[in-house]
C-alpha cells in the first residue's frame, strides 16, 4: 500500500522535502513507517525515533495502523500563539 508522508518546519528543513510517498506492507503501523524512513540513512535518520504523527489530521500513537491513501504528517513540537 502507499501512504503520503508530510514533513513540517524543522523536519522539512532537515530532510530537504515536505512530501514523500512511501510504499509499505499492508497493516504497517506508524512506528514501522518511522523505522522504515530512518533506515534509509541520511538525512532521514535525523527524524526522531518517536515523533508526533497525525493520520489524516488526528495525532495518533506509534501503534496506530496505516491504510492505503492515508496522509501521515510528521509534526515537530509546536509553537503557535
Amino acid at each position, binding site marked *: 500500500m502507499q501512504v503520503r508522508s508530510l514533513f513540517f518546519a524543522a523536519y522539512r528543513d532537515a530532510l530537504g522535502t515536505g512530501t514523500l510517498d512511501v510504499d509499505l506492507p499492508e497493516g504497517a503501523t506508524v512506528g514501522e513507517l518511522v523505522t522504515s524512513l530512518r533506515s534509509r540513512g541520511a538525512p532521514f535518520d535525523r527524524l526522531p525515533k518517536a515523533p508526533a504523527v497525525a493520520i489524516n489530521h488526528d495525532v495518533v500513537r506509534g501503534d496506530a495502523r496505516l491504510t492505503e491513501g492515508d496522509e501521515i504528517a510528521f509534526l515537530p513540537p509546536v509553537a503557535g*500563539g
Partner: protein
Amino acid sequence: MSPSARDQGASGYRIAIVRATIDPAAVLALVGDRTDGAVLLFLGTVRDHADGRPVGGLRYETYQAMAEKELNAIAGEAVRQLGTDRIAVVHRVGNLAVGEVSVAIAVSSPHRAEAYQASRFIIEEIKKRLPVWKHEQYVDGEAAWVRGWTLEPTEGAR
C-alpha cells in the same frame, strides 16, 4: 481578516487561519450580543526578544487543514465548557514583523468570569495543540525554529 461563513461552527463561533494582517476591530465585531455584559479581546503580538536575544521578525508555518480542524475543536470545547458561543479566534501565519498581531481572541458573555476563562483556555490550548511552528529571525542574522510543545495523541484516534 474576515473569517468566512465556512469557518462558522454550528453554534455560532468563528475561527480562521489567515495570512493577511489581523484587524482587531473586525475580530471584536464578530462577538457581542444584547444579553452580554462583558466583551474581551486578547491579542498575541511579536516580541522584539527571545531569551534575551534581539528578534527582528518571525515566520509562522502551519498545517492548514489540521490547524483549522484543531482550532474548531478548541473553540467548540470553550463553548461547551463556558456556555457562550460568542467566540472568534484568528491566528495569522506567514511573515510577521515585531509588534504585529499573531493571534486575536474575542469573547463576549453575560458576565466577565466566563469571558476571561474562555479567552485563557483558548490561548493555552492553542499553544499546546495547534500545528503551528515559529521560525525566529534574530537581529544578528541567525534564525531558528522555536522548540515548543510536543503534540499528544488525540483521545479516541486510530
